[in-house]
């Protein structure tokens, strides 16, 4: 069977599975809709969290980014896993004990202020919308590349599926579809990795093949370092970024991960505090399977690519090369007209441009794997994008129906009315996300990376101080959050978009002005430190929080008796 048929079969099967689960797990109350009735088993929640977390970018782009940046790519590997240690140790158990539905709930109650709640809702919406647009775009890309439908049709199919199970099932439906999606995506990621690891090193475990030798007896990493040196690239195992920037970006990604509302809210769905800790452990274990495999794929793919194309005749290129050339993801420009591909670091002599997404999407073809494996990658990419999109949509809909409508505009709304509002806001959310998926604003990719900085600069200190500093009060936390996020926005506008210096073209020349040599992607950590300092200083000079709030803090520090969620 050809790739197209296989892809339709696998995508059709997985989609029917998701819809079946949605019908089986329909939500009947707001408790079901927001937090799956708080009855999810910790391992199931770990699986769901892993799928929720691993987005289209983790699945499709991350291995490619590492492939092209070598050691510098480590910031994503450490940053997007290390955040779970912070989540498990500093946030998840306490937020579960607090026992409400959303992150703005915690901020609003802990800082006894609807203003704080509104600031938190605003931050949650910005972070979630930028992120979800990227997912829908990912769905469109997978559809258009594998099934040859146009991007718009692809995004609409994705929207309908997400709409169906997110609107019908809420968190309950999302949780169990995410469990299924994790299984699909990890299978789709591991099968090609294992095949290629065997091909290149004879070792079926990619994590070990990573450090093994090829058939010529040379360690793959040494060989690739050598190839890189010959072609003028920086060595694969050493970086080109400054140490302080690598440090700052890693920290910002970790702290941002721990502050992302769609991840935090997953820990509200388990029965008790000890389950919240356990599911963080399982989640990271399941995530680590993909995250420790990705750098191995990156190495295999990079070596394969260079060996296949470098200094070879263009006419001798295999079939996949021409196929991906027609999609524009590979670009060959024979500058010196010798018919041979020169792939080198020097931009004036380099003749080949390769899109990083190819490293995962075309990897099975490059390694000559069977058609069903290639089709599997499409189903996996869709699972990764849809699971993350659904989790984000839930945050968007609960921010609107619970935090704004129920808590601020109309506290008397009935449970049924709130559930309807939640469903309607999910529908609106899907439509907006779909719109951005079809007409992606150029800044999406840039902003997704910065969403972590924003989350680190705003939520992380407010939540951590809310738990670990009993005397932290409204004035301190709100000022800290506002200053943190404004500082981050300012830095981003100045150094990422060049707003104050004449637009995008000015960005490159501003690099030498970076504060402490830290890029906008890493600046979240600086804004976060400022947030901490401002919050603590102000709280020292203003009235301490009321006694009920201090009792609330004592209560969330005590793991026993986490009951059913209340409004």
């Amino acid at each position, binding site marked *: 069977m050809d790739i197209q048929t296989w892809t339709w079969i696998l995508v059709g099967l997985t989609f029917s599975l998701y819809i079946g689960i949605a019908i089986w797990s329909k939500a009947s109350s707001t408790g079901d809709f927001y937090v799956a009735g708080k009855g999810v088993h910790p391992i199931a929640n770990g699986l769901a969290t892993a799928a929720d977390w691993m987005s289209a970018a983790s699945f499709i782009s991350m291995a490619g980014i*590492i492939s092209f940046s070598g*050691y510098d*790519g*480590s910031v994503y*590997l*450490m940053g997007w*896993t*290390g955040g*779970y*240690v912070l989540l*498990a*140790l*500093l946030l998840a*158990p306490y937020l579960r004990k607090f026992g409400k539905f959303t992150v703005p709930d915690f901020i609003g109650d802990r800082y006894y202020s609807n203003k704080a709640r509104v600031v938190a809702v605003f931050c949650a919406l910005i972070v979630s919308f930028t992120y979800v647009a990227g997912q829908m775009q990912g769905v469109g890309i997978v559809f258009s590349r594998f099934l040859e439908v146009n991007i718009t049709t692809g995004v609409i199919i994705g929207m309908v599926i997400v709409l169906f199970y997110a609107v019908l099932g809420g968190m309950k439906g999302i949780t169990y579809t995410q469990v299924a999606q994790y299984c699909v995506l990890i299978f789709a990621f591991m099968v090609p990795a294992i095949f290629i690891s065997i091909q290149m090193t004879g070792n079926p475990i990619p*994590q070990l093949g*990573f*450090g*093994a*030798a090829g058939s010529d007896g040379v*360690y*793959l*990493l*040494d060989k690739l370092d050598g190839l890189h040196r010959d072609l003028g690239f920086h060595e694969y*195992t*050493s970086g080109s970024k400054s*140490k302080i920037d*690598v*440090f700052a970006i*890693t*920290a910002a990604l970790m702290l941002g991960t721990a502050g992302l509302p769609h991840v935090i809210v997953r820990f509200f769905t388990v029965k008790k505090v*000890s389950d919240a*800790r*356990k599911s*963080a*452990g399982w989640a*990271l*274990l399941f995530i*680590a399977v993909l*995250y*420790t495999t990705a*750098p191995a794929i990156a190495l295999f793919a990079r070596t394969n690519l260079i060996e296949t194309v470098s200094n070879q005749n263009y006419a001798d290129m295999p079939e996949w090369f021409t196929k991906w050339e027609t999609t524009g993801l590979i670009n060959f420009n024979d500058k010196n007209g010798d018919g041979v591909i020169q792939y080198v670091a020097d931009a004036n002599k380099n003749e080949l441009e390769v899109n990083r997404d190819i490293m995962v999407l075309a990897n099975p073809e490059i390694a000559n794997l069977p058609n069903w494996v290639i089709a599997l990658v499409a189903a996996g990419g869709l699972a990764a994008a849809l699971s993350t999109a659904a989790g984000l949509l839930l945050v968007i809909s609960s921010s609107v129906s619970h935090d704004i409508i129920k808590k601020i505009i109309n506290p008397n709304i009935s449970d049924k009315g709130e559930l309807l509002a939640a469903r309607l806001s999910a529908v609106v959310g899907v439509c907006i996300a779909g719109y951005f998926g079809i007409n992606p604003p150029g800044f999406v990719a840039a902003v997704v990376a910065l969403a972590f900085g924003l989350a680190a600069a705003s939520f992380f200190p407010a939540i951590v101080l809310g738990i670990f500093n009993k005397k932290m009060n409204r004035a301190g936390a709100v000022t800290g959050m506002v200053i943190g996020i404004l500082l981050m926005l300012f830095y981003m506008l100045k150094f990422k978009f060049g707003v104050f210096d004449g637009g995008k073209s000015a960005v490159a020349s501003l690099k030498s002005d970076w504060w402490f040599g830290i890029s906008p992607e890493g600046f979240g950590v600086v804004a976060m430190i400022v947030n901490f300092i401002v919050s603590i200083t102000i709280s020292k000079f203003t009235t301490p929080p009321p006694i009920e709030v201090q009792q609330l803090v*004592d209560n969330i*520090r*005590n*793991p*026993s*008796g986490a009951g059913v969620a209340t409004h």
Partner: protein
Amino acid sequence: MSEKSQKEYWNENLKYLAILLSIWFLVSFVFGILLVDQLNTIKIAGFKLGFWFAQQGAIYVFVILIFVYIQLMNKLDKKYNLDK
């Protein structure tokens, strides 16, 4: 639960956090970033050690840290009778 035992429970918790987070910092920021060049002079199989920590080792340690934390806290909860 008395105020005193609540305080003791909390302090033990904070002690665990300090130890576990120091290890978290050590394997990622120190081994994977600050000392990466020094560690890269050591080679184990095909891996330079600093590079290995940055792309593999740190992640394994993170997973272990959380499971150790789960064990420690379950024991602590039991000791203070908070596991209900």
